[in-house]
């Protein structure tokens, strides 16, 4: 019945379950929460460890003795310039205001994605399933391609880059300093169950930019009577304050926290309901309206509020999402913390749709085709672009300076060991 009940698999199954539950790497010999293994919460999720047998070596830390002997922060810069005897880390990174990017997010932030080729008979081949093992061991997420912490080039062909990519391009000393603390089903309510997996030492690490992006699960649930299950503004306030208090005691001084608002999800139904789901494309017999209704019947619809034929319910869900966004906005404008400053940005999906339409696209092309719920890679990167531009315009100090030594770093260290 259950492969994990086989005696020789019990222990490894328990370890995998614990890794997924706690959102920490499965393979992490020195327990510094960074791994040399890609999946199972490894370097697809947070910067790759460059020495998994030394707990003091991990991405994001301040260099140890200017990394004369080893690359203590895994940014690929270490050693001494033989021409002048100055350590490279000191020469290229001192005063450059290095910082990491940390996402506190849900499945949208982790980039939940089921490739449509897996369900589309006419497109299926051996190649379609090559990435299935990796996707399964990343809980069907693709954080390496996500809008916030993605470090691989987009597979969708658009030129926009993730926030990590841009931060690294701005200052190569930030290489590998990313963490995706995100989980399927995460909300303001359950973040406390895995926020401990965040790896940042107040005393020894660089400051960080933390994006708090719980963009749906406080209003989305699969309960038949969905409205009473939604987070109230009062609960939201308490939950977020609890998270911010935790961050204040873990983030190095000089960090920044940006709260994302919740999008208005009515576009999901409006854009999809009469289109065919990948399972219905061959015989034109399954629309998204049918698919959502099937999921609802099985109590598996991830968002009964928005993925519903009931217009009143969709409107109610949007109203609650707006109230929760206003709560976040209020927190950002009224609360202060010693170790970080606090900002709020809207998750204005209608603006992303406008951006996309200006390029000749259609709104449905921004939604994951198989689940009909999550923003896809293009939407995530367009959102990242909007957020980056807003920060650059309104709060440029958040991003730190551009490092004038970037080209020299490339010259000496190439791709800095890759990701």
């Amino acid at each position, binding site marked *: *019945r259950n*492969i994990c009940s086989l005696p020789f698999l019990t222990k490894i199954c328990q370890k995998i379950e614990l890794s997924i539950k706690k959102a920490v790497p499965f393979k992490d010999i020195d327990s510094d929460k960074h791994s040399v293994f890609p999946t199972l919460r490894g370097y697809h999720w947070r910067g790759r460890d460059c020495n998994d047998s030394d707990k003091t070596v991990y991405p994001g830390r301040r260099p140890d003795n200017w990394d004369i002997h080893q690359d203590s922060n895994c940014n690929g810069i270490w050693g001494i310039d033989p021409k002048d005897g100055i350590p490279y880390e000191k020469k290229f990174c001192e005063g450059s205001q290095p910082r990491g990017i940390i996402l506190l997010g849900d499945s949208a932030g982790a980039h939940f994605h089921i490739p449509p080729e897996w*369900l589309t*008979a*006419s497109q*299926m*081949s*051996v190649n*379609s*399933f*090559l990435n*299935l*093992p990796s996707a*399964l*061991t990343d809980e069907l997420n693709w954080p390496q391609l996500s809008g916030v912490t993605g470090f691989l080039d987009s597979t969708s062909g658009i030129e926009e880059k993730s926030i990590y990519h841009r931060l690294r391009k701005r200052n190569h000393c930030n290489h590998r300093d990313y963490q995706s603390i995100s989980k399927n089903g995460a909300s303001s309510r359950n973040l406390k169950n895995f926020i401990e997996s965040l790896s940042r030492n107040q005393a020894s690490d660089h400051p960080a930019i933390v994006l708090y992006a719980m963009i749906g699960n406080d209003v989305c649930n699969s309960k038949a009577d969905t409205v009473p299950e939604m987070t109230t503004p009062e609960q939201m306030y308490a939950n977020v304050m609890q998270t911010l208090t935790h961050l204040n005691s873990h983030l190095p001084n000089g960090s920044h926290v940006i709260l994302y608002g919740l999008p208005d999800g009515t576009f999901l139904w409006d854009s999809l309901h009469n289109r065919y789901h990948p*399972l219905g494309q*061959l*015989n034109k*017999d*399954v629309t998204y309206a*049918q*698919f959502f209704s*099937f*999921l609802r*019947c*099985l*109590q*598996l619809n991830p968002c009964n509020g928005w993925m519903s034929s009931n217009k009143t319910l969709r409107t109610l869900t949007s109203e609650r999402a707006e109230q929760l966004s206003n709560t976040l906005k209020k927190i950002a404008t009224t609360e202060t913390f010693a170790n970080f400053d606090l900002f709020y940005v809207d998750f204005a999906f209608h603006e992303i749709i406008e951006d996309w339409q200006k390029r000749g696209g259609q709104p449905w092309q921004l939604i994951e085709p198989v689940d009909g719920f999550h923003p896809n890679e293009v939407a995530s990167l367009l959102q990242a672009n909007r957020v980056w531009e807003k920060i650059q315009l309104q709060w440029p100090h958040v991003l730190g300076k551009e490092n004038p030594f970037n080209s020299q770093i490339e010259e000496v260290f190439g791709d800095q060991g890759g990701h």
Partner: protein
Amino acid sequence: YSHGQSCLGCVVLVSVIEQLAEVHNSSVQVAMERLCSYLPEKLFLKTACYFLVQTFGSDIIKLLDEAMKADVVCYALEFCKRGAVQPQCHLYPLPQEAWESALEKARQVLRRSSTMKYPRSG
């Protein structure tokens, strides 16, 4: 896994098998083998697929050969179950004949099956 997840998984898999047979103009048996052949060896995915074909394949073939839709197949195989207060959940438009009679017909097909290799309740 909850009953809902088993049901969804079954409906998706049977739909894919049915459509693979249609696209390649092949038998259901060949479609199932084709699907398994696409899967990688890693994580025992290919092995698990052939195991499922061996266990459920002959019943799936019989039901799809009777032009049953994937959701009816999965109710007949008891991956989908109707709860006390839960309605019959269906992905595809309801069959022309009443749902109950389509399901009864499917169950009869399985009763005639002499190759049952698994407990229905499992």
